[in-house]
């Protein structure tokens, strides 16, 4: 029986990928609030200048105590409908909402052209971690662990852990900095909101089909649990080589139903199964090294 693959292809988009979430209504971002946050980013020349303004507004920030920690427990995930977008508000039929420099616009154009020809390689395939700020976009399981001195933001993908130091320490001196996957994150609490500044990042891409970022990218975030099932994160990315203006977006994370405790985050090892071994082809695409389960599948 021949089945038209358009039907299968379209429905596959939601078939085994459609999973039950918590059923929470996603918080909305009004255009007024969005523009105000964009203007807030534009009003500061650097990410750290924005962070300092937020810290000043918070009176320096709050010190958490062990007996009064915010409750961000549970297992969380990014809504499926935000897949492959850094800005959840981006219309998929239109370009990313970032204002790119000419060089990085050319890089994005080239990337999209390559993908349209069937050539795409993502280092995630070799279990390179997503890194910051791509970390925001990964659609798998997340957990948050809050202590007075640090907050750990855990992502299932590549076992990635972001450490946010809220004990008052500053960033490493410039002479001691070097590019890292998830950067150096410092922050403070402003009531129930966690404000973070991150530097010391390695270059990467916001996610597949989205712009690249340089090793000069710096990120400011404001995390807030707005209801029992929703966390929103206002994000400003500053990246002079790549961004002509700060890129403001709001991320959403929803709490997953897990009353029976069956959802557990497990270690992620790309080569636990040899079938997962992929490589970059000479054309810039991706292919499997081999399928080596039995001699029946050997050529």
């Amino acid at each position, binding site marked *: *029986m021949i*089945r*038209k*693959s*358009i039907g*299968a*292809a*379209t*429905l*596959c*988009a*939601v*078939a*085994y*990928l*459609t*999973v*039950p979430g918590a059923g929470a209504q996603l918080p909305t971002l009004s255009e007024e609030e969005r523009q105000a946050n964009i203007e807030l980013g534009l009003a500061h020349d650097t990410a750290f200048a924005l962070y300092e303004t937020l810290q000043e507004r918070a009176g320096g920030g709050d010190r958490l105590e062990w007996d009064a920690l915010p409750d961000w427990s549970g297992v969380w995930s990014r809504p*499926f*409908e935000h*897949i*492959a977008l850094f800005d959840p508000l981006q219309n*998929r*039929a239109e370009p990313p909402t970032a204002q790119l420099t000419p060089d990085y616009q050319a890089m994005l154009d080239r990337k999209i052209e390559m*993908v349209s020809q*069937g*050539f*795409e*390689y*993502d280092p*995630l*395939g070799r*279990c390179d971690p997503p890194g910051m700020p791509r970390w925001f976009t990964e*659609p*798998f*399981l997340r957990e948050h662990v809050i202590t007075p001195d640090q907050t750990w933001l855990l992502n*299932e*993908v590549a076992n990635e852990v972001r450490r946010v130091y809220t004990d008052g320490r500053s960033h490493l001196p410039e002479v001691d900095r070097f590019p890292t996957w998830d950067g150096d994150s410092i922050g403070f609490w402003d009531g129930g909101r966690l404000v973070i500044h991150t530097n010391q990042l390695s270059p990467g891409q916001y996610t*597949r*089909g989205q712009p690249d970022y340089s090793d000069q990218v710096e990120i400011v975030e404001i995390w807030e649990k707005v209801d029992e099932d929703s966390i929103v994160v206002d994000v400003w990315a500053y990246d002079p080589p790549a961004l002509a203006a700060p890129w403001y977006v709001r991320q959403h994370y929803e709490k*997953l139903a897990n009353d029976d405790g*069956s*959802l*557990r*985050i*497990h270690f*992620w090892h*790309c080569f636990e*199964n040899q*079938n*997962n071994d992929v490589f970059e082809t000479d054309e810039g*695409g*991706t*292919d*499997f090294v081999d*399928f080596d*389960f*039995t001699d*029946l*599948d050997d050529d």
Partner: protein
Amino acid sequence: MNPSKPSLRLAVSSLTAAATAAAAIVLASVSGPALAHHAASMFDRERTVELTGTVREFQWTNPHIWIQIQVANENGDMEEWSVEGGVPNRLFRAGWRPNSFEPGDEVTIRGFPMRDGGRAALFIGARLPDGSTLGLYE
């Protein structure tokens, strides 16, 4: 149980240009390959392949599950195919379990085949021995 002879069936699309464009937009935005830990450009999402055969092994592993299925090709020779699925935790939430496929199960699996003709596919859906289905399987 003596199953019918395992078979391999390749379903080829007959898409209009508009349908192809629509599929491309949807797939580019929300398809399974977007959730793969690797770029999935090696799969041909314009075509489907249907594999009816015997499960040899089911790998419930991060970052992708794999189903190894033995099928008879057009010449009647047995060959093994590797079918890639999603992340275990995501599939678990969609009703999959580590024993959703058992060695010896007679199943039919649909997937997107490899562009280079390799014996692998990206999972779309399956019909299990008890008649139940996983993924998209009409």
